[in-house]
């Protein structure tokens, strides 16, 4: 059983700075994924993720022990994302990074080409719909749908009441539903009901 995040932070503060490497390995991919979905660009996601860990490393001394390290890390990342989006004057960005480079010739098998095209279009449309949401709703949707944080964790990260998190999520889901249906994206099999 490995050490908890908070134990690793304590080890760092006690002088064992290699413990930060373990925190980095543990959280880097998750944080980078969240940043990518909030800023919409692969390059910016790398850049901001690096900045997040650099800030965390420098500010470990100010980390409150009663808080969760992951929540603190998400807070730093979200603040950096907000700054970056504001610097772009609210302009949302939807990167095409996730779409593979198209070749000059058509793929040989027609059905797979169509399927690929449809998949890319759905991916792109979902990304655009999420990017078009108001910042508060976008953050909650990303943290809940893609980072799979609990409602309580999201409330801690955003420093808002639980009911506010749920209201933002409910409104965000409603807006996404309207946007995607307007774009003609429908017919996907619903997710099975989660077991409590």
């Amino acid at each position: 059983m490995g050490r908890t995040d908070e134990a690793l932070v304590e080890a760092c503060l006690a002088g064992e700075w290699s413990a930060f490497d373990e925190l980095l390995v543990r959280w880097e991919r998750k944080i980078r994924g969240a940043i990518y979905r909030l800023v919409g660009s692969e390059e910016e996601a790398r850049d901001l993720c690096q900045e997040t860990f650099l800030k965390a490393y420098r500010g470990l001394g100010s980390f409150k022990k009663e808080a969760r390290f992951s929540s603190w890390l998400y807070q730093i990342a979200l603040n950096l994302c907000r700054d970056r989006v504001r610097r772009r004057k609210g302009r949302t960005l939807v990167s095409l990074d996730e779409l593979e480079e198209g070749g000059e010739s058509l793929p040989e098998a027609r059905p797979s080409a169509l399927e690929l095209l449809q998949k890319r279009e759905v991916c792109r449309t979902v990304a655009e719909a999420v990017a078009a949401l108001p910042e508060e709703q976008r953050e909650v949707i990303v943290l809940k749908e893609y980072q799979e944080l609990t409602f309580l964790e999201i409330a801690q990260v955003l420093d808002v009441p639980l009911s506010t998190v749920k209201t933002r999520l409910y409104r965000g889901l409603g807006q996404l539903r309207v946007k995607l249906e307007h774009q003609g994206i429908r017919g996907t099999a619903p997710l099975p009901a989660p077991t409590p």
Partner: protein
Amino acid sequence: MECSVLRDERLDVLYGEADAATQERVEEHLAACSACREEMAAQRSLRGRLAAWEVPEALRKANRPRPAPRFLAAAAVLLLAAGAAFGLSGSEVRYEKGELAIRLGSGDKDLRRLLAEQDARHREEIQALQASITVAPRAEPALLPQVEEMIQKSEFRQGELLRTSLAEWNAKKEAQRRYDMARVSAGLSYLDGKNGQHVARTTELMGYMLEAAKKR
């Protein structure tokens, strides 16, 4: 019970965070309220669609390699220490005329003399460096803000440059995507056209066959 009262609890159920009592309460309500049942189904379907947005493969990979196991590091340290001890003892390994010769120890005097000379040289260099540091003129206090300002301006310029090139790159990618889509669309139209011709030809042949059958 009013639907809006159960809204938050329905979200708990939707995301699998509800306890047994909440789950039961929501299920009872859903069984009686078609509007909430439909909304819940729509939300589940929406979640399925949202899952289509994946993080690019390149971002999913870890940036840094995992640290090598500790025993490898320990082995490397032992090897280095053994090599250093071997060298310092004046031992040597030679390969001449197809024969491997290992000489242990000896040459102590020469080695000690060389080490002493090197040590003295290093001390002199360190003293010279220390002297140069103490006599180096200190930066003017007024100069520091200017340097800081220059650094800030340079950083700002670089940021602007990066933003511009990112925007250009995105525009280029968008153009490429549109071009690729147009090519795919043209390809599909061509295939549709060919298919249409084929159907027309088959229909024509069927007509001839029917006519021939009637004449018989």
